[in-house]
C-alpha cells in the first residue's frame, strides 16, 4: 500500500525569490517518491490552520537527491494559498500529497519535440526538457512566452539542454515582441521532421491556440490543463474539464485523475 503517495509533512528547505511574483520553493519530504513523470503534480497545504483550507496544486519541477528527497516547485504568488506559501521560512511545515496525476508521454522515436510554455506553465515543461536532454537523439525546440521578461523562467536551463530556444514577451523586454504562438505556428509550418509532437503548458489562451493550430496541422499535441481543485486525487469531482465523448458519464474528465496531461484532441477547446 505504501507507494510514496501518502500525505507527508515536509519542511521548507529553501524559498528563493525569482522576481517580485515568482518563487522557487524547496520542501524536504521524508519518504517522498524520487521518481516522477514530468507533468505530475503535488498538493501543498498548510497544516497549521483551516484557512487556507484546501491544498493547492503545483507541478513538480524537480526532486533533488540527498539525505531526504527535496521536492522543488516554481510558483507565482496569486491569491490566498500562494501568499501563504510565500510567507513560509526555512523549517516551517507544509503538508504534501503526491506525485499525483499523469505526466507527458513522449514517444521514443519522435524526431522533433516541441515544448511550449507560458508563465507558470514552465515548471512541468522544464522538467520534461531535463528528461529529454538526458536522451538526445531528437531535435528539441522550446518556445517560452510571457508578458514581460519577469515571466520568463528557466531560460538558462532550457539552453543548457541544447534545445533551440525561442522567447517572446508582450512588451518586448526579452526575446521578440508579441505572443509565443506567433513563433510556434510558423515553426510548425516550416517543415520540421516527423514524427513530431507538441507539449504545452500555460494559460488557457495559450493552450487553446496551440490545440487549434496543432489540430489544423494534424500534429499530435499533449496539453497540461489547470482546473479548480479541492482534493487532487479523484474524490471531489471538482476539477472537471469538458471532453469530446458523447457518453453522458464521460462528458467531463477529471483533471487530477485523467490528466493533468491530456491528448489535446480528447478535449473541447473554446474561448471562455
Amino acid at each position, binding site marked *: *500500500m505504501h*507507494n510514496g*503517495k*501518502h*500525505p507527508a509533512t515536509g519542511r521548507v528547505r529553501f524559498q528563493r525569490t525569482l522576481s517580485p511574483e515568482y518563487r522557487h520553493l524547496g520542501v524536504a519530504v521524508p519518504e517522498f517518491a524520487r521518481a516522477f513523470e514530468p507533468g505530475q503534480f503535488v498538493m501543498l*497545504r498548510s497544516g497549521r490552520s*483551516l*484557512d*487556507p*483550507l*484546501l*491544498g493547492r496544486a503545483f507541478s513538480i519541477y524537480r526532486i533533488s537527491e540527498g539525505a531526504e528527497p527535496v521536492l522543488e516547485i516554481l510558483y507565482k504568488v496569486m491569491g*490566498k*494559498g500562494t501568499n501563504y506559501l510565500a510567507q513560509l521560512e526555512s523549517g516551517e511545515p507544509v*503538508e504534501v*500529497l503526491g506525485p499525483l496525476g499523469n505526466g507527458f508521454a513522449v514517444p521514443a522515436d519522435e524526431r522533433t519535440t516541441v515544448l511550449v510554455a507560458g508563465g507558470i506553465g514552465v515548471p512541468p515543461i522544464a522538467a520534461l526538457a531535463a528528461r529529454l536532454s538526458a536522451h538526445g537523439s531528437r531535435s528539441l525546440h522550446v518556445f517560452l512566452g510571457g508578458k514581460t521578461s519577469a515571466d520568463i523562467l528557466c531560460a538558462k536551463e532550457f539552453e543548457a539542454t541544447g534545445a533551440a530556444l525561442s522567447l517572446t514577451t508582450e512588451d518586448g523586454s526579452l526575446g521578440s515582441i508579441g505572443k509565443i504562438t506567433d513563433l510556434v505556428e510558423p515553426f510548425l509550418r516550416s517543415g520540421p521532421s516527423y514524427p513530431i509532437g507538441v507539449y504545452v503548458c500555460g494559460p488557457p489562451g495559450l493552450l487553446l491556440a496551440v490545440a487549434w493550430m496543432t489540430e489544423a496541422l494534424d500534429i499530435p499535441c499533449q496539453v497540461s490543463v489547470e*482546473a*479548480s*481543485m*479541492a*482534493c487532487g*486525487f*479523484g*474524490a*471531489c*469531482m*471538482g*476539477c*472537471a*474539464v*469538458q471532453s469530446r465523448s458523447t457518453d*453522458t*458519464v464521460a*462528458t*467531463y474528465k477529471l483533471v487530477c*485523475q485523467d490528466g493533468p496531461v491530456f491528448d489535446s484532441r480528447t478535449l473541447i477547446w473554446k474561448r471562455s
Partner: protein
Amino acid sequence: MSQSPDVTPQNSTVNLAVEFAGIRLKNPVLTASGTFGYAQEFAPYLDLNRLGGLIVKTITRQPRSGNPAPRVAETPAGMLNAIGLQNVGVDAFIKDKLPYLRRLAPPLIVNVAGESVEDFRELTKRLSDEPGIAGIELNISCPNVAKGLDFSTDPKLTYQVVKAAREATHLPVIPKLSPNVTDIRAIAKAAEEGGASGISLINTLLGMAIDIRTRRPKIANITGGLSGPAIRPVAVRMVWQAAHAVKVPVLGMGGIVSGEDAAEFILAGATAVAVGTANFLDPTNVIQVIDGLERYCAAHEIWHIRELVGGFLIA
C-alpha cells in the same frame, strides 16, 4: 491541534460500536456522500475496513454528466461546490461499483436522488434487491441541481418522499436534510412521520462567491453548497435541534475534521457522524477522526461511546 493527552488507541479499550438506524457500525464514523468517491479512490491511502461505514456519491436513475467547470471554490475555512450530481447511474453503479464495495467490511449506505417521488421509490426498490447494501440515504437536499432542494425545504414533500421510499424497501431509509430552512425541527418530524429509520444532516448551506477580477461567479452554477469547518456551528445547532425533535437516531455532519469535532456532534445528540470536506484535505483524515475520537474517549474515561450520545449538559 489535538488537545487530548496522548493515549494510543491500541492501549485503550474504548468500545466505539453503535447501532444507527438498525445498522451495526464498529465505530460511529462514516464517510459523507460525494466526498469519498466510490471508496476505491481512497484505497491506496488507508485501510477502508477501519471505517464505521461507507456512504457513497449520490446515484440517480439515469447517468448524469454534472455541471460545467468551475465546480469548486475555497472560502474562509470552507468551500463551495456545485458538482451537479455527476454519476454513472444506478445500472452502472450496480454493475461496476457495487461488486467492489460489497467486498469491503464496513456497512454500505447508498445515497440516491431523484426529481420526483417516483424516482426515489424506484431507486430505493431497485437497490434493495441487491445484496451488500445496509441502508439507503435519500438525498432530498442537494442545492446544486434544478430539482433537489425543493423536497427537504417543505415538510409535506419530505414526508411524501420518505414514505414512498419506506414502502419500497425492507432496508433502513435515511433522509438527508437541508440546512437551508427556517425550522429544521418541522422537517425532521415530517421525515420521522414518513417512516425514516434515522435522519442525516446537514447537507450544504447555499452560498455564492464572486471573482472580483472577472466579476463572474466562482462556481459556474452561480450558487453552490457551502461545506467544511466554517459551517460546523450551524450543523451542531441543527443536529441538537433535530435530535430533540425526533426519536429516530441522527447521523451528524458538517465540518468535522478531528475526533474532537466528532465528539461535539455526538454530545449534541448524533448517534453517528460523517466526515465530508476533510477527506479532500488529506485522504487519511477520516482515520484521524476515528483515532482522535477514541483518544478523546479514553482521556475522559468514556469506555462506551454510547455514554457520549446526547451527553451535552445544560446548566
